[in-house]
């Protein structure tokens, strides 16, 4: 059925969920956060609180959690020594028919003042990482986001067929963005951009520069280092 504009009616509850209710969505969010990490490098859950909004057979959990990142001792991975650090995360986890879907993940070190990005849009669809082709009706679920994308970036398409095709590309790209997100070791957030309706091939062909790796170019003399100046 079509996704309503505001599926979560105004029955918002306070941050008072019991530990028992939080267990499954928090564990799922943590698993997604640690996706792709080797044993010994995974973060562990500290404190967590949450609230839930329910509609039909679905529950949308909003979680705030502290995660403890292990110290990094591998000079190949982190050239600068890093001690254990605490990360504050906001998660939104959709639970429907006992299946979970991570809709949003927004994490930053506790001491960082990176609140300016709190309003980032949907950026996490991690459970779909290894599902190809697209899960049935996934494009339909993406339709509201795609509509927002078209509005935000002033996109029009020549035909209904092209719009449908672009929606499929967009949905696939959301999954691609989440693969990239899962494998990024920095603080970058990946998600919807103005290039979200382009296939990987289109993006490479139109915007990138293949000559940089194919040709060596003109030889230049080395710059004097600053010490020599």
């Amino acid at each position: 059925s079509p996704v309503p504009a505001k599926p979560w009616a105004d029955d918002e509850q306070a941050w008072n969920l019991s530990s028992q209710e939080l267990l499954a969505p928090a564990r799922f969010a943590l698993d997604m956060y640690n996706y792709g990490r080797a044993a010994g490098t995974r973060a562990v859950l500290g404190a967590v609180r949450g609230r839930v909004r329910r509609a039909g057979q679905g529950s949308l959990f909003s979680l705030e959690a502290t995660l403890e990142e292990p110290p990094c001792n591998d000079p190949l991975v982190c050239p600068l020594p890093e001690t254990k650090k605490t990360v504050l995360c906001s998660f939104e986890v959709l639970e429907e028919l006992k299946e979970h879907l991570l809709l949003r993940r927004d994490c930053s070190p506790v001491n960082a003042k990176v609140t300016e990005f709190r309003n980032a849009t949907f950026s996490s669809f991690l459970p779909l990482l290894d599902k190809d082709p697209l899960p049935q009706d996934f494009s339909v679920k993406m339709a509201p986001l795609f509509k927002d994308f078209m509005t935000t970036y002033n996109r029009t398409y020549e035909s209904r067929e092209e719009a449908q095709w672009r929606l499929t590309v967009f949905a696939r790209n959301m999954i691609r963005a989440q693969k990239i997100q899962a494998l990024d070791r920095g603080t970058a957030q990946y998600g919807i951009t103005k290039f979200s309706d382009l296939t990987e091939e289109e993006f490479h062909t139109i915007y990138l520069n293949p000559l940089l790796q194919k040709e060596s170019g003109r030889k230049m003399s080395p710059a004097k280092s600053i010490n020599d100046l």
Partner: protein
Amino acid sequence: APPEWDWRKKGAVTEVKNQGMCGSCWAFSVTGNVEGQWFLNRGTLLSLSEQELLDCDKVDKACLGGLPSNAYAAIKNLGGLETEDDYGYQGHVQTCNFSAQMAKVYINDSVELSRNENKIAAWLAQKGPISVAINAFGMQFYRHGIAHPFRPLCSPWFIDHAVLLVGYGNRSNIPYWAIKNSWGSDWGEEGYYYLYRGSGACGVNTMASSAVVN
């Protein structure tokens, strides 16, 4: 090198530009560098013409790509660069319309920088923004924050995008490069990309260069 540096705060960087549907990043990377060099050596910040390079640099291939090293040579051979106002960006190749009388800046030479990121940082802080090339892995979907892609996915051997280093620093103890991109200010952090600094992430250290303005 100082612990952090940002040429944007010192007036050496023009507004973020937009290459449009054209693989002309190489031209934007080079004009950004020359803009900085001219400002630091002559005291005037001028927005310079990428279209001149698309049209008149016959070694490079306009929207199909190019190399900064060739572009420096073209600028030197042509006799300089016109400004953006005088030779505006069209996003597709046209007949060369460069006039030496209209050139507002010139360069004397170009140099290749060290691959050592500490030396690159020191050079940047003292001499100005630097043209670099990177592997653009993930940039299609980058929104904000410091990108630090898993190395095998962002190999230094697959360089496919030229950009401009304008500064560096640390956010929450994570070292980064501040990179001016040419995809408009509605991409990334107001047109900028932040990339992990210190591990040669995405090949950022492999093709650093600059024009020389005496």
